[in-house]
């Protein structure tokens, strides 16, 4: 019994220690950002690697999810004779929930894992320490641009996901299921508010971006410098960020839309 308590206490302390280390780590990296003279190029490279290279998966997924939403929505709504409001259902579910959450999950799998693996490998091959010995702070040179690129690109990817999703839904609803185009758009516009729905989606996405980028770079930087360690760290990035995103999504939704 005492032994169990001891283990519990010990793992509690370990968790706190890791939280503390990762908090210090993120603050130090962000503190290192303002050297824009040389940082600009580094940031551009990462915006490309993290953002542009994630575009294909975001666009394709957005397309299919929009199409499926329209189809499913139609089959349900048509029973109530309400199939004309499929546009409204499509835009609300994308803008409020699926856009931010699915983008975040895809981003964690596509960009987060590769950030972790890349940084972990740089650590394992002593590139980070050799950079330190050349008098260049890896937090500033390697970590900060990646962290920042994550913050910046994910909300943008989310917006692209939504636009493509709505287009996909439109194709299914209007071109295939013969929903009247005017009512598709009109219903959507009257039901979706910019302040409440679009902004809340963007806020969610910014929070998720922060969490995923943080988890990904910290797991890489903190990885055991062996091939096994990098594998474990990459898995942790995907698992922790997915759980964090889903958990935070519930909390944020409760705060944003919970007051009836």
């Amino acid at each position, binding site marked *: 019994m005492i032994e169990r308590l001891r283990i519990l206490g010990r793992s509690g302390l370990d968790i706190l220690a890791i939280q503390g280390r990762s908090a210090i780590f993120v603050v130090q990296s962000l503190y290192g950002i303002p050297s824009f003279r040389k940082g600009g190029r580094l940031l551009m490279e990462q915006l490309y690697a993290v953002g542009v290279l994630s575009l294909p998966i975001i666009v394709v997924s957005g397309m299919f999810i929009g199409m499926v939403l329209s189809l499913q929505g139609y089959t349900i709504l048509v029973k109530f004779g309400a199939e004309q409001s499929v546009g409204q259902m499509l835009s609300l579910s994308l803008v409020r929930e699926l856009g931010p959450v699915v983008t975040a999950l895809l981003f964690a799998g596509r960009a987060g894992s590769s950030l972790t693996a890349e940084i972990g490998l740089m650590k394992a*091959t*002593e*590139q980070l*320490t*050799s950079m330190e010995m050349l*008098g*260049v*702070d890896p937090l500033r*040179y390697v970590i900060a641009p990646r962290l920042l690129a994550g913050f910046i690109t994910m909300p943008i990817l989310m917006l692209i996901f939504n636009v493509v999703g709505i287009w996909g839904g439109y194709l299914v609803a209007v071109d295939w299921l013969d929903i009247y185009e005017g009512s598709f758009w009109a219903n959507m516009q009257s039901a979706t508010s910019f302040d409440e729905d679009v902004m809340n989606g963007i806020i969610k996405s910014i929070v998720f971006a922060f969490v995923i980028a943080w988890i990904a770079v910290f797991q890489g930087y903190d990885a055991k410098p062996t091939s096994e360690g990098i594998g474990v760290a990459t898995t942790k990035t995907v698992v922790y960020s997915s759980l964090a995103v889903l958990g935070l999504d519930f909390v944020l939704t409760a705060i944003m839309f919970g007051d009836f």
Partner: protein
Amino acid sequence: MTDESDNIIVIRDLCFKRGEHVIFDHADFDIPRGKVTAIMGPSGCGKTTLLRLIGGQLKPDSGSILFDGQDLFKLSRNDLYELRRTKMGMLFQSGALFTNLSVYENVAFPLREHTNLPEAMIRDIVLIKLQAVGLRGARDLMPNELSGGMNRRAALARTIALDPEMIMYDEPFAGQDPIGMGVLTELISLLNKSLGLTSIVVSHDIHETASIADKIYVIAQGKVAGEGVPERLMEDNSQLVQQFMNGLPDGPIPFHYPAQDYFDDMMGSIES
């Protein structure tokens, strides 16, 4: 006994532990300026750890490391980076070139980061440094296209790009064929003389090291087991030093990792 100012590095009473494992136990080192000092010892005895302590990447549990009279662990983060930038260089065991940059860009990296030199000047410096290690012709290759020895030489060119006062080499000869080994030995000794550098070479290749070292430290079991000029160390009558210098498999440094009694251990497997 040498004057303090002749030593670029003075280490006193160094203690360092990894968990329960004591790596340094009140060890003292003096690294003479402008000379080649070799650090030798069985693998796992803490040679790389010593270099990392000197580089300020690890903090000792107690004791002091003075670089040019300044205590490394009293420096602020910025001053420590400044010191690494201007005075010390380290060559890692693997070379540790940046894999996303070409050989040329690797050597240019510290120049681009720390100076505002025009591109033409950077090019000149990079080519001079690459010429010094014999890789001027390989400047457009990527690190994964180089052999192990070339990798280390390219990393060496990067290390000397900013003209440090001291270079630490971590096992520069490990895994080299005899020719590569000869090239590196020659290079270390040449750089030391022509650039007036101080060199610290970690190695267990006794002959190569003894041929270029002005001073050798043998570390074992957390302490300095022997020190001095190579010839004197060969004649050192401590058993430890003899075991190491002559490559005897068993001696004061046991062949076996500490373990319980062999017989008990074999019998124990039935019960559990």
